[in-house]
């Protein structure tokens, strides 16, 4: 068993946090945007994520990658935030399978500019329940199915089904929008 002195462990925790913040700081900002629409509350959420991440890194044992660890912590904090909010405003959240069956509404409108397209994407994400939101946000961050499974705790088969649904929903909602994001 490797025994670390306290200052070494503390500086390792600091180094790991710095590495995580440098590598995934922007991704954490985007992730928070997927969970909280209000800018002030989003800032609080990002700070809460950073605090939880820093505290958790004291126990980082390298059994999973730093990236998986960072996303797990961030999604757990953000999902707790959504559940807390859900208790107070009882807004109905839906799963991807429900979103897939909903009528497309004004989706026929051309999504001309990127800002409009992003707003539309965020609106779609904010309707989702925490688990499906984790999957879609991880998918958008370009994580592979195995990593998404590690983060969410759902089976690879289930992840694959959900990704298929995500692509289907995105195609239905954005195909008319032409070349946004390109």
């Amino acid at each position, binding site marked *: 068993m490797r025994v670390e002195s306290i200052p070494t462990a503390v500086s390792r925790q600091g180094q790991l946090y710095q590495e995580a913040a440098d590598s995934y700081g*922007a991704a954490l900002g*985007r992730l928070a945007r997927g969970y909280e629409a209000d800018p002030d509350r989003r800032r609080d959420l990002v700070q809460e994520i950073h605090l939880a991440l820093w505290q958790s890194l004291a126990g980082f044992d390298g059994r999973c990658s730093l990236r998986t660890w960072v996303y797990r912590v961030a999604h757990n904090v953000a999902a707790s935030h959504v559940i807390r909010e859900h208790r107070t405003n009882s807004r109905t959240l839906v799963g991807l399978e429900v979103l897939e069956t909903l009528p497309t509404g004004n989706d026929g409108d051309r999504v001309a500019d990127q800002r409009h397209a992003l707003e539309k994407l965020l609106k779609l994400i904010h309707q989702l329940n925490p688990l499906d939101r984790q999957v879609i946000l991880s998918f958008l961050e370009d994580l592979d199915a195995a990593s998404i499974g590690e983060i969410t705790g759902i089976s690879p088969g289930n992840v694959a089904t959900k990704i298929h649904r995500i692509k289907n929903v*995105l195609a239905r909602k954005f195909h008319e929008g032409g070349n946004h994001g390109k």
Partner: protein
Amino acid sequence: MESEAGDNAKNLWKNQQVEPIQISLAELRKRAQKLEKRIHRRNLREYVAGAIVIACFGYYIFRFPDPMIRFGCVLVIASSLFVLYQLRKRGAARAVPAEMAFRDCLDFHRKELERQRDLLRSVWTWYILPLVPGVLVFMLGDFQWQMTLPNAAVHAGHVKILFGLRVAIVVVIFIGVGKLNQWAARRLQRRIDALNSVEKEF
């Protein structure tokens, strides 16, 4: 078409402008310490309450000569230590490991809430019941001792009323504590129900 829409959405998502938030390590440490202090203060309150009860009844052992009162004090101290041990062993809240996968995290959180709820529901057996014999023996001993004092016959009625009042107050306190814990258990049950309803939406 699906794949193209997915790639487009990924590009759109990753190229968005996000406000960078920088938090220094010193700031993080400060916040963590603040949280730890809050938890430490909460734990301390429980132990201080226990220590006060033990100190008071410890003092009574020396203060009162009557063996029955002393025995009652010993019983109260022993049951207080038992309750404190139970609080430490079963009552301590376990923090959800932040790095757990989300599904496991929810399960852990729900089990933790259920454990706390069951602890509050069973407060009659592990908190109130152990304290009853000691308090009863102490009060009976005190009553008996007062009845043996000089001029006891003159004040017998007064002593009996006082004894009855003390018993009534203790019963009200014990029932109040029990009811308060049942109420807290119902609040936890509502949180568990809310968590279950959110989970159903998954």
